[in-house]
C-alpha cells in the first residue's frame, strides 16, 4: 500500500490495535497467575479484527466466536465490561454468565456470540434474513476460524446465503491452528476461499496481518454487498501467536513457523508502515501505547470492583 493512500484514520486503526494488544497482554498475565478462567487470546490477529470492523457501519451486525476480544474492542466495547465478563462479574456485558467465550454486546451490534465452533455461521443467515426482511440497512459480518470452515455448517451457511442472496460478509481468519491441531492436518489445500467460490460466493484472500490491506479489502467487499445484497468471503491469512488457550502451552507450537510469523506481527507491520510514510513518530506511538495500557489498568480496576452475580441469577432470564 502506498503511503499516500494512508488516510488520517490510519492512526485510529493503530490505536485500536494497541488497545487490543494491551488487553490481551493483561489477560495473558492474569492467566499466567493461575486461578483465572480459560481465555482464547486474539494476540497476533489484531489487524484482522481492526481492519474489518473499521469498514463496518453503525447499523451493521457482527457475529463472532470464542476468540472475540479483538472484534469487540475494535467495535468500541468497553474493556472494563469485557474484563468484568471474563471474570464472571455482574457488570460484564452478559452479567458474568457468559465468561470470556461468548461475549455478546447487543448495544454495539455484536450479537449471538457462540463458542460452539460454527455456531456463528449457523446464526448469521438468520440475522441477515431479518436485516433484509425488515428493511434494515446493515449487513452482517461473521467472523470465524479455519477450523470452523471444516464444520458442515460452513457449507450449509454459505450455500443458503448464496442461494437466498443474503448480505453477509464472511470473514475467515485462517490462523493456521485449530486448537491443538495444525490446519494442514485437517485439509488438503491451504485455503478456505475456494470452498466459498465453489458455492458461488465471491471470495478474496488477503494478508491478514496488514491492517491496511484488510481494511481496503473489507471496504471494497462491504460496498459490493451493499450494492447487490449478496454474500462475500474474505480469507485473512494470519497466525495464532499464542497457544489455543491461556495459560499458553508452548509445547504444541511449531517453533520455526512461529518465528516466521512473529516477524510478521501485525502491530510491528502497522507501525513500520506509519513511520516509513511519515504518518506518525515513535514518541507519538509510544504515547498511544501507554494510553492503551492505562485504559486497561482502569478497566481491570473496574472489573475487580464489580461483584459476582447473586445466587438468584441461577435461574434468571432462562425464558423471556
Amino acid at each position, binding site marked *: 500500500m502506498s503511503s499516500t493512500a494512508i488516510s488520517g484514520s490510519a492512526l485510529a486503526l493503530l490505536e485500536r490495535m494497541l488497545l487490543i494488544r494491551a488487553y490481551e497482554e493483561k489477560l495473558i498475565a492474569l492467566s499466567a497467575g493461575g486461578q483465572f478462567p480459560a481465555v482464547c487470546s486474539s494476540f497476533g490477529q489484531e489487524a484482522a479484527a481492526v481492519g474489518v470492523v473499521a469498514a463496518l457501519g453503525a447499523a451493521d451486525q457482527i457475529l463472532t466466536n470464542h476468540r472475540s476480544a479483538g472484534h469487540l474492542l475494535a467495535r468500541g466495547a468497553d474493556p472494563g465490561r469485557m474484563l468484568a465478563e471474563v471474570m464472571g462479574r455482574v457488570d460484564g456485558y452478559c452479567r458474568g*454468565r457468559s465468561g470470556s467465550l461468548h461475549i455478546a454486546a447487543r448495544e454495539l451490534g455484536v450479537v449471538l456470540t457462540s463458542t460452539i465452533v460454527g455456531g456463528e455461521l449457523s446464526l448469521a443467515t438468520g440475522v441477515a434474513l431479518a436485516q433484509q426482511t425488515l428493511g434494515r440497512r446493515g449487513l452482517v459480518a461473521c467472523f470465524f476460524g479455519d477450523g470452523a470452515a471444516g464444520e458442515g*455448517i460452513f457449507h450449509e451457511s454459505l*450455500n443458503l446465503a448464496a442461494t437466498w442472496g443474503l448480505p453477509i460478509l464472511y470473514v475467515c481468519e485462517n490462523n493456521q491452528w485449530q486448537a491443538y491441531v495444525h490446519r494442514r492436518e485437517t485439509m488438503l489445500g491451504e485455503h478456505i476461499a475456494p470452498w466459498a467460490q465453489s458455492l458461488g460466493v465471491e471470495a478474496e484472500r488477503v494478508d491478514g496481518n496488514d491492517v491496511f490491506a484488510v481494511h481496503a479489502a473489507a471496504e471494497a467487499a462491504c460496498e459490493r454487498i451493499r450494492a447487490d445484497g449478496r454474500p462475500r468471503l474474505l480469507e485473512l491469512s494470519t497466525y495464532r501467536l499464542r497457544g489455543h488457550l491461556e495459560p499458553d502451552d508452548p509445547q504444541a507450537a511449531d517453533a520455526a513457523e512461529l518465528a516466521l510469523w512473529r516477524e510478521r506481527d501485525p502491530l510491528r507491520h502497522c507501525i513500520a508502515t506509519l513511520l516509513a510514510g511519515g504518518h506518525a513518530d515513535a514518541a507519538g506511538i509510544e504515547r498511544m501505547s501507554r494510553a492503551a495500557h492505562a485504559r486497561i489498568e482502569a478497566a481491570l480496576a473496574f472489573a475487580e470492583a464489580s461483584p459476582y452475580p447473586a445466587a438468584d441469577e441461577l435461574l434468571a432470564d432462562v425464558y423471556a
Partner: protein
Amino acid sequence: MTQNASINPSSLHHAVMSLSDALDTAIAEEMRRDPRVLMFGEGVATKRCALLDEFGAARVRNTPLAEAIIAGTAVGAAASGLRPIADLLFAPFLCYATDALVNSAGKLRFMSGGQFEFPLVTLAMSGGGWGVGAQHNHNLEAWFVHAPGLKVVMPSTPADARGLLKAAIRDDNPVLFFVDIGLLYQPGEVALDADIVPLGRARVVRAGTDVSLVAYGKSVGACLEAAAQLAAAGIEAEVIDLRTLKPLDTETVLASVRRSGRLIVVHEASQSCGVGAEVAARVAEHAWSALRAPIVRLCGPDAPVAASFPLEQAFAPQPAAIAAAAHRLCAREPAVAEVNV
C-alpha cells in the same frame, strides 16, 4: 395440505377439520396478524401453496436440504426481530438441528444476560402410522424437555393444535411443536373464533375419581378408549392430556392424583428418561401420601420402531393394556399390584 374444512351448520365459526388443516389455519391466521411471522423448510413453499399464494415468496420459503442451517437461520432471525416457523419434517431430522436449537436458542438468552429473545417455532412429526421405520418415527420430545430454555408442545386434537400453535407463534421463547402422524388426518371440531390455547396448561379430557390416566398425543385417545372400557366395569378414570410438555402443568396432574390416588402415565416415546418418568417422579415427590398404589408407566419399548405394520402398531401402548393396568391398580391390594406391574 390444502384446507378441506367442512363448515359446521350450527355455527359459521365452527368447522370440522383435520389436525393438519388446523395447523395450516393457525399459521395463516398468525401470518395475517403479524407480518414478522414467516415460515420455511424443505418443501414448505411447495406443499403449503395456499400460504405461498397468500403471503408470497419472501414469507413462505423452500430451503436447501440442510436442517442445521434451517434451524440456525430460524434462531438467528428470531433474535433479530422476526418470528420464524421452521418445518423440520420428521423428528429424527432434528438430530441435525440440535446445535442451533439447544446450544443457541435454549442457552443464549441466559448466557447473554438476557440480551436476546428467541420467538421461534419448529414443527416436527413422529409416531406410528406411516410404516417407514425408526429414522422417521422417533419420539424425541423428552430431549427438549430436558434441555433448558425451550418449550415443548404436542397436541392431541385439531382444536388444540390450532390454539397451541397460535400460542407458540406468539410466545417469545423457542417452542418445539411435535405432531403425531397418526392424528394428522383425524377430523375434529375447531372453533375458528376461539382464542389461543395457552401453553403450559393440561386439559382434563374426562373426569373420574378412581385412577388418573396422564398422556399426550395419540395416547390420549388410547386412554379415552381404556376409560370407556373401565367405565363399563365401574371404574371411573380421569384422563389428562398434558398438551404442553414443557412447562409441564404439574398442578393439574397432582390435583388429579390427590383425588384418585392412582396414576398411570402413557406415551408412545420410549420409557427411560421420557416425559412419563418426569410425571411419575413429580407425583412421587409431591403427591406421594395420596398414592394408594404403585405408579404405572405404559410407554413405547426401549427399542427403535420397526417399519413392519403390525410391529409399528404394537409399539404404542394399547387401550387394553391401559385398562388392564387400571384394573390391577384399582382392584387389588397395592402390594400385590406392585408385584405384577
